[in-house]
């Protein structure tokens, strides 16, 4: 019974820490950006570069852009993947899109950045982009014959033209500004501009109670919950309740609850950007540079949003709310479960298996990523747990590249569209590329001379090219005989 309580406590503590510390300044704006991308960017503004006649220099970057700008959920990923493959530029760009979408979209990037660090998010983004295009091109080369003969449907679907409206651009850019102002760690933003102390004498006692509920242990990577965190959790609950009443039928028009929910959201972001410290005589509110920057960016969002027409902003709010409903619930459960599991895993296991940047460690990480299935974004807190338990950052990246790209669900989906031989080739390539990505990033983290890393990358690409030439040669041979 004691063990059970201990586990539950671990889960609840992990959840409270995440909600209080990590979610707000990154995930709230990211949900609004994702919603804005789904509702305000006309698909044709990017997909017109993906038609059958598109040159590969245009179609591969366009496919990657589609992955990061258009595809935030499976509702878009599946039809767009099938569309690019069947009616558009073909297998290569379709694979690039499929590989890049789970890692390159704004939710994944913002979340990875806030939990594992900006450098890690950047490495994930860059390596996924490079290797996504690489895998796409390899697949196109391996299966060029199928690609040339596959059904010659019209590509009217990708001939449509559209551009993004000015109001929509303004809203999206200001939201990105909110995200950056909220998460960037520079002294200009963390500096205190002024402070007010409210006479709330219970603040210090409340902090002591919070640390009793959620233990605070740096060695195990457990962070505890601050007074500010508890206030933010309360505000999040209020937002959830008012959004349920205000956003569920937003398509038909806004009501009083809509404005309450939006107002609460803005207030929450501002409070999260301040620094609240319990003192003997009360609770100190320190206004930071960050709070001012977030306030300014929020004002810009409002200013541009007023220029959107009614259909556009309703669709934007609906899509944002839908992402919250779809992803947030899974994330809450996922983070809780991760907290429970963390109590069961001994750090020594992870350190022995993947504590150093070796080929075996990277391969094990990739294997784990392929066989475990975590819902959208839950792979990030899982990765954080491994990092806290002593996993090396190289294998960690390998795991993060393989996990969202390959799961039983996505393998089945891909197989339904392109058939089994291509799917297995794709799975194999992703496994190899992820392992190599982990090794390279791990070497960089360890401070290995960049020249050696470049030589390693060149050797990998060279052997890959040789293998490819050999495979193509073998395939071509029977045709001559």
């Amino acid at each position, binding site marked *: 019974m004691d063990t059970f309580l201990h586990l539950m406590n671990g889960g609840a503590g992990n959840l409270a820490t995440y909600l209080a510390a990590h979610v707000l300044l990154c995930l709230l704006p990211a949900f609004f950006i994702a919603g804005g991308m789904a*509702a305000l960017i006309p*698909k*044709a503004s990017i*997909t017109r570069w993906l038609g059958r006649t598109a040159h590969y220099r245009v179609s591969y970057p366009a496919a990657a852009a589609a992955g990061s700008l*258009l595809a935030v*959920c*499976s*509702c*878009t990923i*599946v*039809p*767009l993947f*099938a*569309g690019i493959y*069947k009616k558009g530029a073909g297998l290569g760009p379709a694979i690039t899109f499929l590989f890049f979408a789970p890692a390159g979209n704004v939710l994944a990037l913002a979340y990875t950045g806030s939990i594992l660090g900006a450098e890690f998010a950047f490495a994930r983004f860059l390596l996924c982009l490079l290797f996504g295009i690489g895998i796409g091109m390899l697949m196109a080369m391996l299966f060029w014959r199928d690609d040339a003969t596959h059904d010659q449907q019209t590509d*009217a*679907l990708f001939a449509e033209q559209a551009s993004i409206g000015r109001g929509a651009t303004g809203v999206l850019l200001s939201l990105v500004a909110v995200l950056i102002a909220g998460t960037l760690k520079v002294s200009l933003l963390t500096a205190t501009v002024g402070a007010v102390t409210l006479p709330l004498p219970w603040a210090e006692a409340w902090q002591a109670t919070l640390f009793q509920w959620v233990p605070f242990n740096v060695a195990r990577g457990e962070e505890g919950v601050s007074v500010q965190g508890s206030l933010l959790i309360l505000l999040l609950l209020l937002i959830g309740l008012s959004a349920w009443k205000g956003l569920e039928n937003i*398509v*038909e028009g806004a009501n009083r609850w809509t404005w309450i929910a939006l107002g609460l959201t803005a207030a929450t972001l501002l409070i999260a950007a301040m620094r609240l410290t319990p003192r003997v005589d009360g609770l100190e509110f320190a206004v930071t540079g960050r709070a001012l920057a977030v306030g300014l960016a929020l004002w810009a969002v409002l200013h541009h949003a007023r220029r959107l027409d009614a*259909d556009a902003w309703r*669709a934007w709010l*609906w899509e944002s709310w*839908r992402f919250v*409903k*779809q992803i947030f619930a899974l994330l809450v459960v996922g983070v809780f479960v991760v907290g429970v599991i963390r109590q069961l895993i001994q750090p020594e296991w992870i350190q022995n298996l993947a504590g150093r940047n070796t080929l075996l460690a990277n391969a094990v990480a990739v294997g784990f990523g392929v066989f475990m299935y975590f819902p959208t974004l839950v792979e990030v807190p899982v990765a954080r747990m491994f990092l806290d338990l002593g996993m090396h950052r190289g294998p960690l990246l390998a795991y993060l590249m393989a996990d969202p790209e390959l799961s039983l669900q996505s393998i089945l989906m891909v197989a*339904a*569209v392109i058939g089994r031989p291509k799917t297995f080739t794709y799975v194999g390539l992703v496994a190899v590329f992820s392992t190599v990505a982990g090794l390279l990033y791990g070497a960089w983290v360890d401070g290995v001379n960049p020249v050696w890393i470049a030589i390693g990358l060149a050797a990998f690409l060279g052997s890959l090219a040789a293998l490819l030439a050999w495979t193509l040669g073998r395939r071509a041979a029977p045709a001559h005989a």
Partner: protein
Amino acid sequence: MKTVKILGSGCANCKKLEAVAREAATSAGVEAEFVKVTDMKAIMAYDLLSTPGLVIDEKLVSSGRIPTQAEIRQWMGG
């Protein structure tokens, strides 16, 4: 009698679209049969880039978004 098809693999937006379309049909007094299309190949037969898609009498009227009840009533000719 109209035939209304909801195209989508069962994500949240498809369920929402179906609810909105049903309400629109009822309020317009249009008699309609609702068909849910979840098979990817059948969905791709209509030209659309993202689900949910709404098809009324074999004509794709909207995709990738949830139309308002008023729009749907207009498409139904009610």
